[in-house]
């Protein structure tokens, strides 16, 4: 059953979002869960993408992705009305949502996308939300408005100082942890290295932190084990045991190395695609939909 793209928008140079028909997943999905996408029925690879939002009434889910390789580039080249051959899910365990008190939510780059539904649900559960969004520079920052709407406090950082505060997200995180009204819990989603350092910071303050891991996957249902990570020294499968884990127990160094296991082949496939792909549409900054 193919999935039609009903709306699409370019969020920054390499970050895209789309609303896609997937009624069953929209209905079954909860914050923290993801889908596996493969764009054709020939031999396209299967990649995991987190569900950013769902509209049960319209039967759509919203995905956000960054153009980093062949499959994400192909996805970016699809237009409204085009179809994605395969989307399966929702996969993984949903986030445990409860009223913790004050929660600090740290989103780095594309990681803000999976963080948004979690922060929303935490807000709805009565938590006070302090959000920290970080990006390399202003044009890579996404979802600022959405986070502003649901946050009691929003701190924006950029690595190069082109917008917000010139800092890494760990700096304001440390300050927030230092406050008298200490946060009761932290969530961090972003590049593995960022999550590692966020975990280091919260460890010093003894504040529990949940991280969502974005490992390589094939089936997403526990069958292959390609996504395994070391949690507290024991192997766990991100697809069925996660994707969220206690950030203080994750072996990030190993995870980062495993993420790069295929980097040269991935690079080769992407270069080849860029060279031979004919469909390289430029998208405007606004949403494109069927209605124009």
């Amino acid at each position: 059953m193919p999935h039609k793209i009903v709306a699409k928008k370019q969020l920054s140079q390499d970050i895209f979002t789309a609303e896609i028909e997937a009624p069953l997943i929209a209905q079954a999905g909860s914050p923290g869960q993801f889908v596996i996408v493969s764009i054709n029925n020939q031999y396209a690879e299967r990649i995991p993408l987190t569900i950013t939002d769902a509209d049960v009434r319209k039967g759509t889910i919203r995905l956000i992705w960054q153009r980093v390789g062949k499959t994400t580039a192909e996805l970016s080249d699809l237009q409204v009305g085009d179809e994605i051959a395969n989307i399966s899910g929702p996969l993984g365990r949903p986030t445990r949502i409860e009223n913790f008190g004050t929660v600090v939510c740290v989103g780095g780059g594309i990681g803000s996308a999976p963080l948004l539904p979690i922060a929303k649900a935490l807000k709805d559960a009565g938590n006070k939300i302090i959000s920290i969004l970080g990006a390399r520079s202003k044009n890579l920052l996404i979802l600022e408005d959405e986070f502003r709407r649901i946050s009691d406090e929003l701190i924006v950082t950029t690595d190069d100082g082109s917008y917000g505060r010139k800092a890494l997200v760990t700096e304001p995180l440390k300050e927030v942890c230092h406050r008298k009204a200490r946060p009761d819990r932290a969530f961090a989603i972003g590049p593995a290295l960022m999550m590692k350092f966020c975990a280091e910071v919260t460890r010093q303050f003894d504040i529990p932190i949940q991280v969502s891991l974005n490992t390589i996957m094939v089936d997403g249902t526990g069958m292959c084990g390609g996504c395994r990570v070391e949690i507290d020294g024991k192997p766990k499968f991100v697809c069925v045991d996660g994707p969220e884990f206690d950030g203080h127990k994750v072996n990030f160094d190993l995870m980062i190395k495993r993420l790069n296991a295929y980097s040269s082949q991935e690079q080769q496939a992407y270069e080849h695609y860029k060279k031979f792909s004919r469909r390289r549409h430029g998208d405007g900054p606004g949403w494109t939909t069927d209605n124009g």
Partner: protein
Amino acid sequence: MRGDNITTEEQRRQLLEELFEKKKAGKLTPAERFKIPPQPMPEQDHNDRRHNVNEVALGYTETVARLEAMRCLQCKNAPCIKGCPVQIRIKDFVAAIADGRYEEALDIIKENSLLPAVCGRVCPQEVQCQQTCTVGVKFKDPTKAVSIGRLERFVADHGLAVAGTATDEGPGTSLAVAPQTGMRVAVIGSGPAGIVAAADTRRAGHDVTIFEAFHKPGGVMVYGIPEFRLPKAIVQKEIDTVAKMGVKIICNFIVGRTRTVDQLMNEDGYDAVYIGVGAGLPTFMGIEGESLIGVYSANEYLTRANLMRAYDFGKGADTPIAHPKKVAVIGGGNVAMDSARMAVRLGAEKVNLVYRRTENEMPARIEEVRHAKEEGVEFRILQSPKRIIGDENCHVVGIECLKYRLGEPDESGRRRPIPIEGSEFTIELDAVIIAIGNVANPLIRQTTPALAFNKRGNIIVDEDCKTSMEGVYAGGDIVLGTATVILAMGQGRIAAAAINEYLARKKETAKQPTDRR
């Protein structure tokens, strides 16, 4: 003409003619049948096949198949049938092949088995029908039994070639479907058990939908068993047959996530559910270094290679796979052989198969072991890894192994492997593939509270494959642990019969109150 020096097709044809004349006259004696040499399976040269993924066994020609079929003594008690998990009328289909009545032979098989082209290739006949074959017993050599599997494959392939699909309209009634009953059946998983359960319940006139988690149907036949042993085109034809019968197949649908069993029954209007979700989670050894880069579960390695066709990476396939030069495969089953032989084809210079018992205890089929050896896989028996060694970049560089000896038999009846203290040694490697089995996937268990499971996580069923939940049946690896295609098919068939009976009863009780009014 005597059988001993037959090498050319012409000689075979002559011999066949002679024998057939005698047979027609009712004069072919058992002694003469014994003299027909066992017909070898033509195979791709082992040097060539190291470099391609094409099927290794090339299949019998008509002459060869008929000669082989003539070897069958047509025993009255037919021990072969007792050895078959689905009781195919073996001696009858073999007799039909001997006479050249291939369509009839296929119809006989189809009475009991829906997937002859698959089972003819992957069934472990040597421990089933061929183990009990009188001819093999007479020669005290099971490899000299009538090659029932090869004959099954021949006749199935012949049918596929003639009709497009093995059960295409042509002969037989395999595609015939009873009038609509108005009852709906959900089949979870499109592996061998699911396909058979779907076909059999569809035949009874029910509205049947198969739900598959992957983006392609076929289960282990497409993600697990490699192309060189079971071409994917054949699996697809078998699936097309089921679709032609009117079975709906929905992919990318994960029961337990997309919808639960309870939702299927209570909200989506399914009257019965068959669970055939397969073996699930790969087992690791629990030793140091198993998360290093270059350590694969056999499931991952084979799924990348087979389902995602990673051997064509950059030539139409997008999924990468490692191309290690020195590989160790841990395990001694068919999956271990498949992994080792796939590694050979992906360019490994040295493939070690590390197994902690001896070749006698290996669960793999004899033929797979032979093929692996011919292709240069080095068997390291009575050894097992103690830890996996990595470099500073977390890449595998070797395994430290212990040597083993065999002790007393354990609960599996096989002699228990005992490590020899102080026997550590190291093998240099750049990849390790772990093929030591699977445990049940917990997804259905976690989301179906009313379903009873055993300690190992397998669904508990009765002799009709009925579970603890009314209207829910299960079979295949999720019930049996790790089994074979044919055993899974057998359970699919039993469950389908029970579902058909259950639904007939349900329809009857649904009618009764109205009748009485």
